[in-house]
């Protein structure tokens, strides 16, 4: 079953076209990796999926419904949750309270307090439960981004660069968490520059450059494709 379907999305900021003729569909249970150089338009794509930004043209379909003009909160309640590349913590609230917001207002909220406790343990943030989010390190803020998104009980989880700056063992534990979440049936799209981390879990890769989809397919094929080589060679040469 198709969970997410993007149809011919276009978005410009002034003269800068950030998303161009972008179409993509994601099946239920997929784990898709998105690659592309800085400024390619990856985060803007997420913004259009979640509703933070509305496309100039094109349609976003989620779970069989057209959601192009729907606001972000409603989409979250339908089952789309995300982490922000630049963390957006609720700085005056504790780690637990941050997660509780997701558990209370997200898709399912049967027993939000308990749900928030469980997510906190699962993501290893339990030792910082009562700490103010504003006092967390950047790495912990990124972990909180993911914990909060999970607390919203998403069908589709969007992760925006959460592996940068991690040590090897931290990266392994992050990958384990992602695999666990995926095994519970959550569909995941993950933007990441740390290619080896992405390769180890993604079933499919999509490469974005200048707001366009350059290529997509299984990870091996995509990484060896001439398009990807030229992008990354280009970057090396620069």
């Amino acid at each position, binding site marked *: 079953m198709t969970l997410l379907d993007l149809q011919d999305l276009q978005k410009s900021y002034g003269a800068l076209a950030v998303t161009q003729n972008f179409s993509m569909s994601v099946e239920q249970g997929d784990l898709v990796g998105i690659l592309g150089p800085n400024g390619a338009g990856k985060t803007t794509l997420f913004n259009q999926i979640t509703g933070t930004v509305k496309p100039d043209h094109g349609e976003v379909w989620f779970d069989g419904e057209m959601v192009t003009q729907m606001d972000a909160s409603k989409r979250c309640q339908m089952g789309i949750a995300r982490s922000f590349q630049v963390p957006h913590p*609720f700085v005056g609230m504790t780690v637990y309270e941050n997660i509780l917001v997701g558990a209370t207002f997200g898709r399912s909220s049967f027993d939000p307090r308990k749900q928030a406790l469980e997510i906190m343990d699962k993501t290893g943030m339990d030792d910082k439960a009562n700490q103010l989010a504003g006092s967390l390190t950047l790495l912990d803020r990124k972990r909180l981004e993911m914990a909060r998104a999970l607390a919203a009980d998403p069908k589709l989880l969007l992760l925006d660069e959460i592996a940068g700056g991690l040590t090897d063992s931290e990266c392994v534990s992050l990958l384990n968490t992602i695999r666990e979440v995926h095994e519970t049936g959550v569909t995941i799209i993950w933007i990441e520059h740390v290619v080896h981390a992405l390769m180890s879990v993604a079933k499919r890769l999509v490469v974005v450059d200048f707001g366009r989809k350059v290529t997509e397919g299984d990870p091996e094929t995509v990484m060896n494709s001439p398009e990807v080589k030229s992008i990354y060679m280009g970057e090396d040469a620069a």
Partner: protein
Amino acid sequence: MQHATITRSTQASRIAGILALCFLVYIGAAPWWAGSADLRLITEILFYLALASMWNLLAGYAGLISVGQHAYVGLGGYLMFSCVLFLGMNPLWSIPVAGVAGALISIPVAWLVFRLKGPYFAIGTWVVAEVFRLSAAQMSSVGGGSGLSIPVAVMRDLGRKPDREMLIYFTAFALCVGAILLVYFLLRSRVGLALTAIRDNEVASSSLGVKIGRIKLFVYVAAAAVTTMIGALIFVTKLRISPDAAFSVNDWTVFVIFIVVIGGIGTIEGPIIGTLLFFLLREFLADLGAIYLMILGAMAIGIMLAAPKGLWGLLVSRYDFSIFPVGYRVRR
């Protein structure tokens, strides 16, 4: 997974709560220990505390930086006068009527000003207040530009002077305590969790399912209702109303913003500290006239630069403490 429980209050906040309750009883008993002049002063303090708590809810939590709340104070005053003069109502009974009317009128106003963002919203609220003032000045039935007074007979109906003062005092006390309790219980509820999240980050809140527009509207209407009621009672004590006094941006908005900013925006305790400080300053410095206002302005700027979270924020940044615990603690 260790067994964990969630608590809302701490030992310290429980002790502080009991002390606050004792203080509250003491203030509530003011008619028995305060003279007439002091009682009037405390009544005025209660008015400002209630107004500040409402502005703090709007600006500090919902991010609605209104500079036009004097629209509702004045509206309350005029509604009270209309109820008394045209419907023959008791001035105090007109207060709940004013509250309901204020809430109803605030809905179309919200529909208008919510289209404006950031500084434009602020300007929009001020323009609305100005429209209210000009409209009041046009209505000859309520005295037009020069205003009117409550007939002596109406006030006599409220009882002899000491009884009347006590009645008005208790009404002010109830309104003020009610306003603070409203904020407190609102913040402890589901809506409060959403409001605190909105206070800290709107984009993240909406991405986590918080319906920002709906919650802002609710807060705007609630604040308008309470502010209108306070306005009605303020003008019962003043006995006289005119468009300039009723819709005074200085008296009902600028001073209120000053109170919240120096006390600590986005906390329940901030407006309380701010109100006390404001009246202390006024008692000692008001004789200085224009210089007094310049001192207030300089203080506000100084505190905004040195302690953006106000005096209460400065206190709690050292000690993890609150008199009104609205957060959640995880205990294992």
